[in-house]
């Protein structure tokens, strides 16, 4: 994959020139979105996207959510995939907290988990880059490397025809992100904060994916499947706002799942 930072210097010039000559985009004001074939079911956001939006609503003490303990290793691949996503999300939390030692520990933990699942080779350069960027306190670079790490893990899994494991990595990250989001919003409830949970299509996407992987029917995957059904009515509230009580319930559910993901 080509990085935006590897583009040659003429690209900036070309695009600057383009800025002077580009047309404003003309498009119909209304369309029937259902008539289009979709390329991807739903694009799963990075934990950093929701944390960024949360940060804009007020100060968050990210340090209290940093987690670096090594935790268990699993022999079951679906469990490792979920944990890998969860630990990468922990990396984004450590970046928000600007905690360099935690970032470095998490980088090594990601590498060890990736090796355990047979995709370590693609992660080694990213783990090194995470450590270097954390040492220099270059937080944007750490974020970028965490994104690259997740992308490389998932690409390597896809190349091994293991798309389902790749989806579990996304799910692990999303669950950890949702746990932190609900913790923050529960403590200082605002409707704007609760609105960040309005992700019904994403929830349906994950539910459908889990249903399509009966071969990975380990207890934690079953727990998540049931939990998604519990969470759905709490966030799919139509035009009504998501309540403080719903935020608390989702936090309880995601905290319970997090325990199942990280402990043996």
């Amino acid at each position, binding site marked *: *994959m*080509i*990085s*935006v*930072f590897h*583009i040659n210097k003429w*690209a*900036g010039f*070309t*695009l*600057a020139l*383009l*800025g002077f*000559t*580009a*047309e*404003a*985009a003309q*498009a*119909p*004001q*209304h*369309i*029937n*979105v259902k008539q*289009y*074939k*979709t*390329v*991807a*079911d*739903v*694009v*799963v*956001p*990075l934990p*950093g*996207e*929701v944390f*960024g*939006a*949360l940060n*804009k*609503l007020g100060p968050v003490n990210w340090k209290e959510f940093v987690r670096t303990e090594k935790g268990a290793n699993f022999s079951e691949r679906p469990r490792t995939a979920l944990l890998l996503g969860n630990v990468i999300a922990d990396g984004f939390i450590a970046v928000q907290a600007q905690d360099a030692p935690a970032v470095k520990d998490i980088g090594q933990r990601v590498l060890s988990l990736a090796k355990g699942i047979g995709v370590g080779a693609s992660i080694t350069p990213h783990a090194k880059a995470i450590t270097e960027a954390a040492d220099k306190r270059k937080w*944007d670079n750490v*974020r*970028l490397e965490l*994104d*690259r790490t*997740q*992308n490389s893990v998932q690409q390597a899994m896809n190349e091994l025809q293991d798309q389902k494991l790749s989806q579990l990595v996304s799910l692990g990250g999303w669950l950890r992100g949702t746990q932190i989001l609900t913790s923050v919003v529960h403590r200082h409830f605002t409707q*704007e904060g609760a*609105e*960040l*949970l*309005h*992700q*019904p*299509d*994403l929830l349906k996407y994950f539910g459908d994916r889990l249903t399509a992987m009966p071969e990975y029917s380990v207890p934690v995957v079953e727990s998540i499947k049931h939990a998604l059904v519990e969470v759905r009515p709490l966030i799919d509230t139509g035009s009504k706002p998501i309540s403080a009580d719903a935020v608390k319930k989702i936090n309880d559910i995601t905290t319970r799942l997090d325990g199942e993901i990280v402990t043996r």
Partner: protein
Amino acid sequence: MNPRRQFVLLFLIVPLILRGIASGSVDDAQSFALQAAEPYVREGFQVREDYWGGDLAAGEKKAVRQQLFKGNEYWFWMGTEVSHARISVHIYDKDGKLVEQSDSWQKGHFAAAHVVPSTTDSYFIIVAVEESPEERTHWALVYGFR
């Protein structure tokens, strides 16, 4: 080289190689989408490593459905390696209402759409190849947020 081998090389293998070079790939399209993103990186947009792409006939459209968060600002950049193609990208909410900002733009084989979501929800990014000299045109979409 014997004449039979020369024939195979000249009339079968070389055209295949040339066709491969000329036809490009989604990865090539992605490099153009990233070119479109580059000035915005300097403005603080974090460009996601992942990308979406494929190939479309002229006049064909596809959708990428994406969860966006209120409070963030997003740009979507589309590119193709077919320099004489004209492509477009637009952003609609779930009800099919155009929600992009007026500074969204299209120029030849680059296009970009800007959105500041008014609600946290899933949105539809509609990509299209408006015109192209090729039967099928590779395209790629990347996005960034801040």
